[in-house]
């Protein structure tokens, strides 16, 4: 019974750690399925984190905070979209620029917000369900964004596999020229995908500054945007695997806290390396077989498209 009682907070904290990764990685899945590689997630997350924090402090409403974060992420992704889609710039370089810019801008804007408190987004409380022992704690005692992340997963799964627009998006990601020749607008679809990815990255960032550590700290995403990118590869561009991967990584990040709690004689720095080392290992496992990538990666990923070429 005792070890079981430890397991519950462990699972709960894993879910909290995984949620921002789910938002960011699911958004990027859509972006990449449309054939665009946006390496700027880290920058958009930080902008989302600072915007969400500032808006929540200003308005007192978490809802407004998350909405502001989504719009901030979208605004940044719009710059990326204009450069890569209209001006056909190199997607890798532009994504890197977006991350560098986002890190700088968020630190600049958030300079006076550092160290200030904000009310943490409270877990929901469903009268009967939350009160159930164990099950209530495990399933019905998270904040609303956790449930929305699962709803987002279901929505994206349906969109990609069953909706007309989703199939069109996938077709464009595989072969923009064919899609263009049958009259589908590559530019519009890719723009919408990029904006969606920006919004989810912004929300992921706000989840860090409003739920995980309710405050604003410079560079607080500490590589989570890049881990989200790795998760998309890990999930072989499939939403279900991406979400499972996010929970797995959430577990890895929580392991360090529990290892410290149990007094394992490992320096904290080595425990902090776990998520990064795990990312490398996971990438190696997935990419080891070139066929896995060849079969699953959208064929036009990272390539610019212009209609007359």
């Amino acid at each position, binding site marked *: 019974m005792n070890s079981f009682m430890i397991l519950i907070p462990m699972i709960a904290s894993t879910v909290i750690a995984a949620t921002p990764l789910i938002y960011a990685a699911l958004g990027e899945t859509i972006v990449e399925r449309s054939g665009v590689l946006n*390496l700027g997630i880290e920058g958009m997350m930080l902008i989302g984190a600072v915007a969400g924090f500032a808006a929540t402090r200003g308005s007192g409403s978490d809802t407004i905070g998350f909405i502001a974060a989504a719009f901030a992420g979208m605004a940044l992704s719009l710059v990326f979209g204009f450069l890569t889609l209209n001006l056909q710039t190199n997607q890798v370089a532009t994504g890197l620029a977006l991350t560098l810019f986002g890190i700088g801008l*968020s630190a600049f804007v958030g300079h006076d917000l550092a160290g200030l408190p904000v009310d943490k987004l409270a877990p929901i409380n469903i009268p009967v369900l939350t009160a159930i022992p164990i099950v209530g704690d495990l399933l019905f005692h998270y904040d609303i964004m956790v449930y929305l992340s699962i709803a987002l997963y279901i929505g994206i799964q349906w969109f990609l596999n069953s909706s007309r627009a989703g199939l069109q998006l996938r077709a464009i990601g595989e072969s923009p020229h064919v899609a263009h020749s049958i009259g589908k607008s590559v530019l519009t679809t890719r723009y919408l995908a990029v904006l969606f990815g920006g919004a989810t990255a912004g929300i992921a960032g706000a989840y860090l500054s409003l739920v995980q550590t309710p405050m604003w700290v410079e560079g607080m995403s500490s590589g989570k945007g890049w881990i989200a990118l790795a998760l998309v590869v890990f999930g072989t561009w499939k939403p279900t695997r991406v979400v499972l991967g996010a929970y797995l990584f959430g577990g890895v990040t929580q392991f360090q806290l529990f290892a410290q709690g149990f007094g394992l004689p490992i320096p904290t720095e080595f425990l902090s390396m776990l998520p*990064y080392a795990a990312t490398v290992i996971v990438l190696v496992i997935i*990419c*080891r077989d070139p066929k896995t990538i060849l079969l699953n990666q959208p064929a036009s990923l990272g390539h610019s498209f212009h209609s007359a070429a």
Partner: protein
Amino acid sequence: MYRLERRATPSSTMSVVSPILAAVGMLITGFLLFSALGKDPLEGFYLFFIKPLSTSYGLSELLLKTTPLLLCGLGLALGFRANVWNIGAEGQLTMGAIAGGGVALWFGDSDSSFAMPLMLLAGVLGGMAWAAIPAFLRTRFNTNEILVTLMLVYIAQLVLSWLVHGPWRDPEGQNYPQSQGFGDAETMDVLISGTRVTWGIVYALGLAVVAWVFSQKTFAGFRMQVAGLAPAAAAYAGFSEKRNIWIALLLCGGAAGLAGICEVAGPIGRMQQEISPGYGFAAIIVAWIGRLHPIGVVFGALLMSLLYLGGESAQMGMGLPSAITGMFQGLLLFYLLGADLFINFRLRRVTPKPATSAPTATATVGKAA
């Protein structure tokens, strides 16, 4: 109405003009941003771009910060030309500092004349070893080097943090996470007395010449360039992709490692938690502004160094956060990438025709008003 039209051949004029356009765009945006935030833009500009260059000490600091940026930028440019996306120069720099710094601490206060050469060698090898990991994973396991090199940045920084908090901590350092200061023989000689500029800048400029010879005059450099410009042609010619990846990553890792040891054995003088304010990342922009050409990279490194100095100066003079440097860096790269459009395209005025006209064969990318 204007329309973008593909040029028959890329414009070499534009590839030089584009960085200048980008710098102007960055300045204008910075001006607007300062105004929007209620800061005096003229004062900001003076502090940012003029004041650091107005004293001889400022100029020497410019050279000092140019050193790591140039070293990393040269290595990255070499890789980017060959389509090898090493973005973890920061980690390779850190590992070089750890390896070289470890040698320095091992020598302690010894005045052996072997100390400095061995430190530099260890720095280079440390950076190379760190870059060998993504090279191995990419060539053997097909693993994307972008994410691996980046993850290794975080790991290298944590290794450094562990060392200065644990085994290397100075017992008399009042619990600061830093090592003892390096001995005299383990500290690089100052090049110009009264400044902090070390021999590092000479190594960096020397490497720029070497990199120019390598990329323009050697067959290995040519192979890498072909691999970047036309991968299919490179494969057809039998150029080994794996060899290019190894060369690109090892050379960049070595240069970044040298930058790392030059920092800790130069201006820093000990091992500590913070050894680089993101030089390895800024070097990505340096490489791009320099058109991935060794001589261009020298100018790119000088400009980026000025942005760092300007950021510090604005921090002291106006109380602006130093992160403003990062913002300007990002802006600069945005504008540069955008302006590069005009290397391959040009604006052409078109007179509107009746809607029934036949579609033209030119590439229409977007409409510019």
